[in-house]
């Protein structure tokens, strides 16, 4: 049924509010705990049982993917309605029911490039959190120069055969399926890449977690040894994968800039100024005793404010139909710098309290900051390094030429 905005937006708000009040369990209105984040998929354990109920109810309405078409299980909401839903969820401090690369990256790309059969087959399972997806992009020899990837995909008549290795595959050991870039033509670079989907339980797939400086292992090395893939699981044209890959990277960069950054929504409520007050102290006028640190904290806070104002400005300009091209690279670069500066200042303000690793004797919140500080170092590497972002800005935005 067609939806008349001018008449019904306020009614939609009222209905949404009532529905959320009735259906969002009380424990889902408390701040997210790290071990209660729901990523979905076959191996999801739902540590808090309420999170299962919450996901099912939201997915039933399609509200895990509010703006996706209803025929694929999405919410079919207009942008204005989706904003209302977001506002009403914030109002009761409702948690996001589902964290998912499928929602943030793969789904939007499949809706754009997939055929009808593929969309019907894969999108509803993303909406419901039944399939957890991982991203097979980087390889040992293809990081920043992603298009140099070598994982081979050969046409064997009734199926494809895949051989090669991926690296930095986020949560490959926990994912059910992978969307993967593979080489279908070795004689050309960008034009020899295809975009293919397969089950991580296929024979010949192996994922090994990589332990990071933070002590955590969110990424894997992933090996493909004669993996057979049905032919209807290739998205778009053979050798046409690079277009899809680039579009998906845009979705990834915007979701990173919007605050996705490997965390569960910011690193706690306390800022560097709070820790500095606590561990360094203030004078009788309430000024931080370390004047130099005080200035650097302020510089960072102003940068952070400038960043969020820029996000707002670009959203407003986009809404008004003005050109905001290539802003994803600027925001990705700025977000990485901002998050890294913030964590360096947090660690500095914490002093030795920020240098604990595990066990007793340290404030648990501070130990978390320490791990997040280490995690933040990846912000300028993942999803396109900051140097690549600067290349993109200089070439595509400023029009500077390549070196001959």
């Amino acid at each position, binding site marked *: 049924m067609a939806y008349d905005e001018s008449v019904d937006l306020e009614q939609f708000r009222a209905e949404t509010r009532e529905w959320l009040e009735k259906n969002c369990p009380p424990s889902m209105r408390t701040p997210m705990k790290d071990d209660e984040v729901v990523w979905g998929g076959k191996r999801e354990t739902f540590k808090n049982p309420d999170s299962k109920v919450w996901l099912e109810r939201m997915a039933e309405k399609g509200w895990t993917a509010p703006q996706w078409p209803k025929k694929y299980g999405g919410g079919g909401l207009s942008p204005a309605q989706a904003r209302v839903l977001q506002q009403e969820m914030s109002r009761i401090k409702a948690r996001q029911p589902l964290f998912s690369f499928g929602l943030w990256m793969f789904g939007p790309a499949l809706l754009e490039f997939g055929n009808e059969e593929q969309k019907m087959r894969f999108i509803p399972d993303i909406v419901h959190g039944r399939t957890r997806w991982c991203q097979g992009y980087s390889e040992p020899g293809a990081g920043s120069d992603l298009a140099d990837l070598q994982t081979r995909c050969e046409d064997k008549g009734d199926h494809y055969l895949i051989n090669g290795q991926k690296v930095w595959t986020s949560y490959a050991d926990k994912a059910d399926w992978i969307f993967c870039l593979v080489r279908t033509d070795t004689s050309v670079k960008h034009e020899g890449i295809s975009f293919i989907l397969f089950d991580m339980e296929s024979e010949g797939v192996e994922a090994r977690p990589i332990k990071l400086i933070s002590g955590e292992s969110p990424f894997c090395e992933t090996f493909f040894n004669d993996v057979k893939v049905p032919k209807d699981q290739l998205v778009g044209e053979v050798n046409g994968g690079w277009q899809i890959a680039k579009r998906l990277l845009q979705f990834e960069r915007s979701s990173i800039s919007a605050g996705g950054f490997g965390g569960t929504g910011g690193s706690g409520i306390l800022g560097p*100024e709070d820790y*500095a*007050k606590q561990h360094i102290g*203030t004078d009788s006028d*309430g*000024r*931080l005793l370390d004047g130099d640190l*005080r*200035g650097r*904290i*302020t*510089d960072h*806070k*102003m*940068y952070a*404010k*400038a*960043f969020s*104002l*820029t996000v*707002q*400005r670009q959203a*407003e*300009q986009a809404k*008004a139909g003005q050109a905001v091209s290539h*802003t994803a690279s*600027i925001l990705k*670069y*700025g977000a990485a710098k901002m998050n890294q500066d913030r964590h360096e200042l947090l660690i500095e303000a914490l002093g030795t309290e920020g240098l604990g690793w595990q066990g007793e004797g340290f404030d648990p919140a501070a130990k978390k900051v320490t791990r997040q500080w280490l995690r933040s170092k990846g912000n300028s590497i993942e999803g396109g390094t900051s*140097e690549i*972002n*600067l*290349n993109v*800005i*200089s*070439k595509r*935005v*400023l*029009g*500077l*030429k*390549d*070196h*001959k």
Partner: protein
Amino acid sequence: MTFLLTEDQEMLRETAMTFARDELPITHLRKLRNSGANGVDPETRQKLAELGFFGVIIPDEPGGEHFGLVGLGQILEAQGRTLAATPVMQTALIAASALQLGGSPAQQAEWLPKIAGGETTFALAMDESAHFNPLGVATEAERNGQGYTLNGMKRYVPDAHHADMLIVVARTFGEAGDRHGLSLFLVPADAKGVSIQALNTVDSHGAAHVTLEDVMVPEDALIGAADQGADVLEPVLDRAAIGQAAEMLGSAQAAFEMTLEYLQNRKQFGQLIGSFQGLQHRAAKMFTELEMTRSCVAAALSAVDEGKDNVAELASIAKARASELVHLVSNECVQMHGGIGMTDEADPGLYMKRARVQEAMYGSASWHRDRYARLSGY
């Protein structure tokens, strides 16, 4: 808060940009400098008056429509592009704001139309040391029978060497450093006891030291309430800081475009120097800073027009970030131009000289960081 211009503001921006480009190009500043005009330019003042640029925040009728600080910001940004020396900041922004925020109905009725028509120009005589310090004012205003007697010395007052009127910040109570006890006075620049010492400044805009020696002003020269001058002065200075940030944004944008053009044309080692990654990344960082500062300036301008309660915070963010931006871009502009950037004949040096003046006016980046921290409770 909105980041978008209304149709009227968009047209005003267009007019201001065209005017700056065609009538006040950077060669105009060179001409003023070389003729020893020291930033004094009656012809331009006349043209600005005809365009209505002095009355941008002054409605025709009290309470009527106007372009707002957002509109005035567009003019200042345009002037920043070509480093134009005009009375717009001191007269159209500072004096108009002071009178609107603190002036009596009689003062408003007398002065606002004269400002809008470009008949009278003003200069804010405040600082007494080499650094921005509103509360540090020590100039005395002593009550006499019919009004006040002013005594003191003001340093580096922009436009004081050609303004018709001064707005003098003086102390009617307490001592330097106290917020309470400041008062604002309207003083004709040619009043008895006022002496103006014109200064040749690095940016060729000029300025003046102002000495007040037993200057008598009547009771009705007082803007706002006696001793409560800070209540008017502080919001005026926030607006000035925001306006200055808009001007700096224009200067930085123009210096950046000049640099980019050079990178796209100059060849060394048989290559365009803009193809070297060492320069590309620095250019890209400047661009990122420019875009982020543009958001801060737009937000601050619009917050004033909407009467938001976070104007002071946004003013400090805009001024501090725009100061850092214009500092960076003006230095890089000279550096990336190489030897030619060191010559008087080329423009980068003019941007760098003007930048240091812009940075110092209405609070340096450090001053605003300090205040932002204070407002944020640390």
